């Protein structure tokens, strides 16, 4: 059986639904607890409605851009896999794609390449799911200690923490961007165009003072780079 077909069978949809159900149970339980205390402290129904309305409005833009970007995951893997990983998981679509590429390397294959087969797919399923457990361990077992840990680990230097994450991301995406850069033709053009468009949209959002544009910047750059690469290659 072809891996693309297996990747969209009920098993993956159900796996995604189970994770989503856990997330929905958790957030509903927490919300009910919070609302009960807030009501007892005098928060009115209309105030609660204002909070809910604000959250819905704030979520709308990111949710729409998430669905727009999710097309990439649907095309690269499958709709079922996109649901399993994005319904309630940890990584963004971009993280997922780079982890899928890492997993394929582990199987000695190129993600989405001609040699990508069932062995590569099985490794992608394993690595993408299991490699994100660290976030759940950190949240599940260490949340109560995070306040103290923040001060200790940073050694009082919180700014270095954010620079460290930037360096780690630049390192991994620097590798994957470079590996595309050296391939030549439309692929080189796509990676350069994606980079330039991304920087352009992020800067544009600041220049025209439209922070909402940043939610769409990566998606627009991704599709723009892809189309430019294709047009160049013919």
């Amino acid at each position: 059986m072809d891996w693309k077909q297996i990747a969209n069978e009920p098993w993956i949809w159900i796996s995604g639904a189970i994770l989503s159900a856990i997330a929905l149970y958790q957030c509903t339980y927490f919300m009910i607890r919070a609302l009960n205390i807030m009501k007892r402290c005098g928060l009115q129904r209309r105030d609660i409605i204002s909070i809910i309305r604000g959250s819905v409005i704030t979520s709308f833009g990111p949710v729409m851009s998430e669905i727009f970007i999710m097309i990439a995951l649907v095309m690269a893997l499958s709709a079922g896999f996109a649901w399993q990983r994005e319904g309630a998981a940890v990584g963004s679509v971009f993280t997922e794609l780079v982890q899928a590429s890492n997993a394929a390397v582990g199987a000695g294959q190129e993600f989405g390449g001609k040699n990508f087969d069932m062995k590569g797919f099985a490794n992608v399923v394993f690595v993408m799911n299991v490699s994100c457990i660290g976030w759940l361990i950190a949240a599940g077992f260490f949340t109560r200690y995070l306040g103290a840990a923040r001060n200790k680990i940073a050694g009082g230097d919180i700014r270095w923490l954010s620079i460290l994450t930037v360096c780690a991301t630049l390192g991994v995406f620097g590798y994957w961007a470079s590996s595309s850069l050296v391939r030549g033709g439309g692929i080189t053009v796509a990676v350069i165009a994606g980079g330039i468009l991304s920087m352009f949209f992020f800067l544009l959002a600041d220049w025209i003072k439209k922070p909402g544009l940043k939610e769409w910047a990566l998606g627009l750059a991704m599709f723009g780079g892809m189309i430019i690469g294709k047009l160049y290659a013919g």
Partner: protein
Amino acid sequence: MEAAKKFAAIDPQVYENEFSKPIHKVGMITCGLAIIGMFLPPVWLYLQYGVFPPISAIMVGMGLALTYAVPFFIIEPISYYPTLGDAGTYMSFLAGNISNMRLPCAAVAQSVAGVEEGTKEGELIATVGIAISIWLSIIAVFIGAVATGFFVQFFPAWLQDAFKKFLLPAVFGAVFGQFALRGMKYAPIALVLALVPLFLKWKAYVVIPIAVFGTIIIGRFIYQATKKSA
């Protein structure tokens, strides 16, 4: 702001017994269940289709994935904690999309209610804001996945070809560009550390750790040098 005036001070004992304790308990259990749930797809794939990757492939794949992810396991929960609070941290790291959805929703909810982050009131309000955003995003992602999965088959052949060949390079370029803006000093280092071994035809599982850890180490030197001269 009107809401803040009506929000009476919360009794610390009530907060501890009726919010903190139960959310730590349920948070730990649900995150534990999600950890087990992460093993479900590979196990199910094996049980139903008899497919499981070779151990060597898992080791190399996990090694590369963790090279990238491990710094985030530690740094992200610590960085986001002040805004998210306890309940928000459990929810956000289970549901994902933290920086683009959970954090803004927590901040907006706190702003609407006129409460400050880091306070008990702020945490309760952020909890409601984040929970609503999780419901919305899970429903929307499900509809989006089903609809996208249906519509992609109607994409013209040239577009399907573009997705197949040029999407990933464009993604890598776009994310690199985004983070280059946040660390212009560090971006060329990452590129050089990746490009040189690539030209030498070194394997990916060697080059990725060099690029990640090399950029972090050199970044640390640059950061300290800049700090001293400032």
